[in-house]
């Protein structure tokens, strides 16, 4: 009887915790939307420039800037991260290099985003002479996302049944053929879903981009990686530091756009992953 009562008690407590967690998200979204509603207009989303005044400003450049950053970070972090995972899982299993690289990645994962910004400032902005550009932002977020991409990719590669892997080798396939024809296609669904999740986290980061020197006022939509660094999260931050009450609504509206982009990316990853899985079966 006592056990049963304990269970009820635990059930109630964990249920309350679950309601609290779900509630936190809904409350956040609710307040954000209420604040954002007055500013959420089409010309706000599409405006080609940000202004120092609340009127007539918008997030067009920031949206495009974030899209650029996403593309650059993905183009760098995905091949390097997946390549690293393939090497660690297939070529260097249990060897010393694998352990060393694994430790280094664990270290990289423990570095706070703002410190990535500091390193990015020293390496990409200054040493490599990129300046405070979208390119430098993309490179910095790529290093930020790299450890997560590697660990997601390793998980995905490990999910391929070892028997199927051995069967491929037993049929005279080379390592590269096994990786390309078996491991990557089979792991593709979780690779895609995991990568989108990781990248969606990365494009939500403001701290490293602020350190690099992101601008909050720009009169044109960035058209190339060499253009000044603008992004949604840094735009949100910039507006929250302004005293004028209208900026609160702008920050909220930009936050909604950022959230929508992140959720959209995750959803796209999940949907694409599932579609790949279906077509593989």
């Amino acid at each position, binding site marked *: 009887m006592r056990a049963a009562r304990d269970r009820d008690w635990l059930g109630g407590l964990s249920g309350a915790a679950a309601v609290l967690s779900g509630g936190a998200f809904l409350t956040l979204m609710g307040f954000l939307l209420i604040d954002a509603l007055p500013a959420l207009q089409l010309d706000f989303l599409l405006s080609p420039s940000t202004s120092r005044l609340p009127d007539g400003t918008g997030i067009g450049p920031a949206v495009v800037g974030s899209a650029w950053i996403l593309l650059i970070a993905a183009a760098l972090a995905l091949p390097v991260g997946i390549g690293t995972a393939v090497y660690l899982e297939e070529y260097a*299993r249990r060897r010393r290099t694998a352990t060393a690289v694994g430790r280094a990645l664990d270290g990289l994962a423990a570095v706070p985003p703002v410190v990535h910004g500091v390193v990015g400032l020293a390496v990409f902005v200054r040493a490599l002479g990129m300046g405070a550009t979208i390119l430098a932002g993309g490179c910095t977020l790529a290093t930020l996302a790299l450890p997560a991409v590697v660990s997601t990719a390793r998980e995905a590669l490990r999910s391929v*049944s070892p028997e*199927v892997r051995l069967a*491929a080798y*037993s*049929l005279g396939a*080379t390592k590269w053929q096994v990786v390309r*024809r078996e491991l990557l296609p089979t792991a593709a669904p979780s690779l895609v879903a995991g990568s989108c999740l990781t990248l969606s986290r990365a494009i939500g980061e403001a701290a490293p981009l602020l350190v690099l020197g992101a601008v909050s006022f720009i009169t044109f939509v960035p058209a190339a990686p060499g253009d000044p660094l603008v992004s949604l999260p840094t735009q949100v931050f910039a507006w929250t530091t302004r005293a004028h009450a209208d900026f609160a609504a702008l920050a909220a509206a930009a936050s909604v756009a950022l959230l929508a982009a992140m959720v959209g990316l995750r959803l796209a990853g999940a949907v694409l992953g599932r579609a790949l899985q279906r077509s593989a*079966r």
Partner: protein
Amino acid sequence: MNRSASGRSPVLVAEDLSVSFAGKVALEGVSLAIPRGCLTALIGPEGGGKSTLLRSFNRLNELTPGAVTAGIVRLNGVDIHQGGVDAATVRRKVGMVFPEATLFPRSIFDNVAFGLRASGQVEELHNRIEEALTTVGLWSGIADTLDARALSLAPGDRQRLCFARTLALRPEVLLLDEPTTALDSAATARIESLVHGLKGDYTIVLATSGRRQAARLSELTAYLEGGELVEHGPTETIFTNPRDARTESYLTGRFR
């Protein structure tokens, strides 16, 4: 050296072969010759070293992290661990079928074509696939549905497809690792008759925990226990008149 029990020349020879995984010994000092065209059965309790010995013949052990091999394995007289020998080439000559049907999640055609495509033998792809599927007795049933997913086949047919996939490469040796262990009795009977039909055309090494299966199919039998080759010889001799007490107790079912 190893007299091949049937008097025929050996295709595969293991000389003082030892294998360990991360320091744990799986095979110790095994010397055995596999004569050409014969079916040699490897029998013995689980963990006795049957699978490890099979996987020594096609260099599959080296894919397991921490595996260390000592001793020599010769295929047609050539040491397969020698510097210039390519593992993929060895595996094409020494094919393998696993306990569970390990099909790729693709079409029937793609599964059988896998090894041929991997080795660039794509000129007669369709003929080779037809030939392999005919040999295993699947062709008439699935000739029109080669694009169907391989995993949609019945378990027994899946295992036969694994045989076809291996045979498509026209190997010299077939390593069969408990090929019927996951199958019901009807499917087992079909696989056994397939193996029976392949005898003579191929040199076959069959690892099995089915004593009767070994007795039914093999000419030669080797008994392994604790990573050691206890004894080997003509199947009839091993089964009716084993020299070693361990073999006798295993065969009479008194083992453990």
